[in-house]
Structure formats: structure tokens, C-alpha cells
């Protein structure tokens, strides 16, 4: 049977974060923590594969203990098991350190629960917005890497090949590759289901497997947390709005107002640049 790992991060809903206009700092209070929604589209796709072909789904998450909430949500939707990788030592990780720990975690999942065929990640996280952790994990585990996937077209278990549609800026690329594979999910991939009642009941008493730094014998301390993170935030600021001297245009009628604006536009370099000649022919 297919074994699918889904990486899920619990994030502050950055859409809800406000800036204190007096101090120019973030108001984090009261900001809800949610499962990164791109990740949930990865989970949904795993669930669809499970429904269709049969699969075992393991959800993994690196984060502080309260992240258990997101894992329970995954269980309620139909994931089979969940692992929370949590330790103070992991805190402050950038994408490089995160992919190191998640890579080790997935290796351990494979060792304890069986080889992994597909790893799903979200396209990016709401709080980090980088999209770098997926490729990072693929690299560390030497998996094939398919990013920005909007559709899984076909899984051939016999040949161990998978075909997907990747959404790029200028079109859709249909690509086939070998499993094991890491896929990063777009929200166009599917519509996330609602948890069925039995799922919610199961989730209520569910406890995820907890792994700390102690559980990884080969772990290199220099590669985790803040120490293992090459990038550092040197400062944050609220961007000042570009100051513009706005000229308001008003006349008695819309026609006259429009005429005034057109006159202004015709005083710029635009007409010459775009070949709008000066004339009055219609």
C-alpha cells in the first residue's frame, strides 16, 4: 500500500495581523493559529489517493506543543498517524534548518512505519511565504521534486511513476516522474473536505507521536534551530508610503473633468511614447 507523508505547519494567520499605527510594531495578540492552508490541500490530495487506491497517511509537523491542534485537525479529516517534532532546540529555524529536521523526520517515519512513496508539502507557508522547504526536503532525501502542482493526473503503482500538472506563470506543464516524489500543492488542486463526525471523535482523544532532539541519534546540533540557519533578520520596518503631491482634478461636468485629465496626460511624454498623436480626428 502507498505510504504518503504530509508536512503541515501551524502558522499565525498573518492576514489577521495588524500594525500598531503608533509604534509601527506587529499586534500579534489574538491572532489565531491555523494549519497552513496550502498544506491542507496537500493533505486533501493524499486523502483522495487513499480513498481511491488505499494508502496510509502520516502527517508530520515541526513546531511548539500547541501545534498539536493542527495535527488533530488532520486526523479528524482522515490521516492515519501524526508526528509532532518539538524541542526548544528546533526553534528559530529558517528554511534550511527546517528542511534538515523535516528530512530527518521523514527518514525516521520511513524507518519506523515503512518506506514513503509520496511527500506532500504546501506551495508555501502563510507566515514564511518562501516555498523553499519543499525543495529543501526533496534535496535532503534525494526525492524527485514537483513544485506548484495543481493536479495529480495519474499514479502508476506498478511502474512507480506519477504524472502531474504544474502551474507555471505562462502555462501548465504536464510532467511525469519516478516515485518516491515530493509534491508541493497549490490551492487549485482540490477542495478541502469537512471532517466527518467519526473523524472528529477520533481526533478528540488522539495524541500525536512526539519526537524531540533526543529521538534523532545522528542529529547534528549545528544544523538545527537558530544556529543552523544561515539567514538572519537584521531589521523589520513598516514601509513608508511614497509621498506624492496629488493634484485633484474637478470641473462642472464629467466631460469637462475628463477633458482636463486628458490635457494633463497630453502634457506628459506618454502621447509621444505611445504614438497618440495630437489631433482631433475620431
Amino acid at each position, binding site marked *: 500500500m502507498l505510504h504518503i507523508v504530509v508536512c503541515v505547519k501551524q502558522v499565525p494567520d*498573518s*492576514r489577521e*495581523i*495588524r500594525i500598531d499605527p503608533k509604534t509601527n510594531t*506587529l499586534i500579534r495578540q489574538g491572532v489565531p493559529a491555523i494549519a497552513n492552508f496550502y498544506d491542507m490541500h496537500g493533505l486533501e490530495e493524499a486523502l483522495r489517493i487513499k480513498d481511491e487506491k488505499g494508502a496510509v497517511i502520516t502527517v508530520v509537523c515541526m513546531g511548539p506543543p500547541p501545534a498539536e491542534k493542527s495535527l488533530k485537525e488532520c486526523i479528524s479529516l482522515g490521516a492515519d498517524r501524526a508526528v509532532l517534532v518539538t524541542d526548544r532546540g528546533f526553534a528559530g529555524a529558517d*528554511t*534550511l534548518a527546517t528542511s534538515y529536521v523535516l528530512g530527518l523526520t521523514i527518514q525516521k517515519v520511513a524507518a519506523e512505519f515503512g518506506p514513503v512513496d509520496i511527500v506532500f508539502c504546501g506551495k508555501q507557508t502563510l*507566515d514564511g*511565504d*518562501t516555498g*523553499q522547504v*519543499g*525543495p*529543501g526536503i*526533496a*534535496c535532503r532525501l534525494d526525492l*524527485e*521534486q514537483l*513544485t506548484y502542482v495543481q493536479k495529480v493526473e495519474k499514479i502508476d503503482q506498478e511502474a512507480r511513476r506519477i*504524472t502531474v500538472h*504544474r*502551474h507555471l*506563470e*505562462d*502555462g*501548465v506543464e*504536464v*510532467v*511525469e*516522474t519516478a516515485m518516491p516524489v515530493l509534491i508541493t500543492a497549490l490551492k487549485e488542486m482540490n477542495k478541502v473536505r469537512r471532517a466527518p463526525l467519526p473523524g472528529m471523535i477520533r481526533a478528540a482523544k488522539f495524541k500525536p507521536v512526539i519526537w524531540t532532539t533526543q529521538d534523532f541519534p545522528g542529529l547534528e546540533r549545528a544544523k538545527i534551530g537558530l544556529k543552523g*540557519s*544561515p*539567514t*538572519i*533578520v*537584521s531589521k*523589520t520596518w*513598516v514601509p513608508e508610503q511614497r509621498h*506624492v503631491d*496629488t493634484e*485633484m*482634478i474637478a470641473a462642472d*461636468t*464629467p*466631460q469637462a*473633468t*475628463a477633458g482636463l485629465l*486628458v490635457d*494633463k496626460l497630453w502634457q*506628459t511624454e*506618454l*502621447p509621444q511614447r*505611445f504614438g*497618440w*498623436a*495630437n*489631433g*482631433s*480626428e*475620431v
Partner: protein
Amino acid sequence: MSEVAEENKKKAADDMPDWSDYRGVMIVVEQRAGKAASVSLQLLGEGRKLADKLETELMALVIGHDVRHLAEEMIYYGADKVYVSDAPELKDYRTRPYSRVCLQVLRDVKPEIVLQGATATGRDLAGAIATHLPTGLTADCTILDVEPHPSRLLLASRPAFSEKMLATILCKQYRPQMATTRAGVFEALPRDTTRTGEVITVENTMKEEEIAAKVLRFIEETERFNLEDAEIIVAGGRGLGGPEPFKMLQDLADALGGVVGASRAAVDAGWIEHKHQVGQTGYTVRPKLYIAVGISGAVQHLVGMQNSDLIVAINRDPDAPIFKTANYGIVGDLFQIIPALTAAVKEKRVLIPQSSAQEGVTHGKI
């Protein structure tokens, strides 16, 4: 610079390992079918500034099949040196063969800064390379700068927390310093065919049998609509009230030779497709002229258009924040102003010579 600041700079540099082996700024060029992505040309423009400030070389890396002609192009757009890897196996972008070539070049050449566009391909490749090297990678930057010698640090700034803040990210303990940057925020240099430079060939060492991924087909977006490269944009927001009035905007855009953009509110309402969306979760644009119609001017919209050369706002609410960013503002009902404006533009224009604007074709920009 004050002496204290000078001292601090030195100290900062002292903390860092000796990176004197690593010199130069490298742009990893993205191309499809032998045509360079506009973000890559924009990056050459920005990279030129950084390289000049560091008194070092600007390099470009071109990977693909039948792409040799791009080497010269990259020089015309600002590169001093271009590395080219041209092989049939490299025709389509695939992570493994492309990262193999990239890693080989980065390990040999040792640039101190490596930049790519934050496109699907750029992010896919950069994420793989940074992990392999390993080094730090900052995604989706909108402002780049460098500290001069001796620290030579890349100051990579990017939006954070849904564009509400900007954060500057540094990478002190690893080289090269890597970043991906958003399309549309930097400006390409004018193409200068008198520029000369050096072209270096890089062998592809990966054979087709070693590559598991096969690109079966590419379905190009049927309608060639390109908001990012448009020089004139007429954008509509929730104030339009429905899909119909967008036709009115299209008329104005046609009369000016531009294209139609939209706010997220209009896209979310289903009045217009996402490919028209300007802003944080849409496109970043910097046209010569941006006309915002019935758009309030939320930060997430402004980040996508505030670098436009000339901004006109039309809104019935005199307190709409969009007016603060606009060069010209009209307070009024868009349903009256827009038809009047279209008529006034048509009246000013001559039909002859027939310009492409009449067919609604965009004036291309890199």
C-alpha cells in the same frame, strides 16, 4: 559616514569568515524556447548596480537547448561574463539536470551573490541549490542592496506579514548569498548592442537515462495576456459592481493602448480572472500609466502598483487612501467619468496612423 559607523562596519566584517575567494554577482537566467524571462533582464539591471557598488563582475548563467544566442543578449543587458550550458537534455526545465549544471558553475566560479526570479521555476531551482550548497536563501525580495567592501553583505529585503512590513535578511556565515526576486520590481537596462563581454561554455554532464522526470507537454496559456509587461493599465475594483462595467474599462484601455487590471475584490467576486489581479497575491506592475477605478487603495493593492510612473485615481470617496498614492485624482462617479474619459481620449487621438492600440495590443516592455 561617521567614524563610529565605519568602526562598526569593520567589526561586522571581522565577525565573518574570510570570503575573499567569492567574488562577483551571478544572475541565473530563466528562459523558455530561447526567450529570456523579463524578470531575468530586470535582474541584470539590478545586478549591474550591485556589482558596480562592489566593484566586481556581473555574470549570467544561461541553461537550455539552442540558447547560445542568449549569451550575447545577456551582455547587451548588462552582463560582463556569461556561462552557457546548451544541451538537448536541458531543453525543458527539470530540477535535477538544471541544478547539476548550476552547482557545478557556482562551485567553480564562486560568486558572492546569486540571484534568480521568484517564479515557479526560479523558486524550484533556488530551493534545491541552496540546500545542496548549503547556503542561505531569501525568497521574493523587492529591494536589494549591498554593503560596500569589506563586509560586501547582500541586504535582501522582502515583504513580511501579508505585506504589512518589510524585513531585511542577511546571510553572514555562508557563501554565496542567494535570493529570488519578484518580477516587475526592478528595471532592465536599455538593450545596448555595443556592449561586449566574455562567453564561457559549460558542459552538461547528466545523461537522459539519469533523469527520471519527463516533460510530456506544455499547455501554453491560450490568450497571450501579459499584465506584468503592460505599459498602460486601467484597473477596476469593487466600485465597478459587476462584470459588465469591465467592458467600459476595456474600451478606455483600448483607446489608450493598454490592458485591464483589477483589485482582488473584483477577482474574488468573480467579475474578472485572476491573471488581471494587481497586488500582493496578484502581479506586481510598474507601467508608465496606471488608472485605478473604483479601487480603495488597500496596502495589498498598493504594493503591486505604487511604482508606476504616473497614477490616476478615480473614486467617489474623497477620503479613499488611493488618492495619497495618485498623481492625479478625480472624485466622482466612475460610471460618468469613464465614458467621458474614453470619449475625450478618442477625440484627442488621431486614427491615422492606425496604431496597434486599436486592436488592444499591449505595448511591450521588458
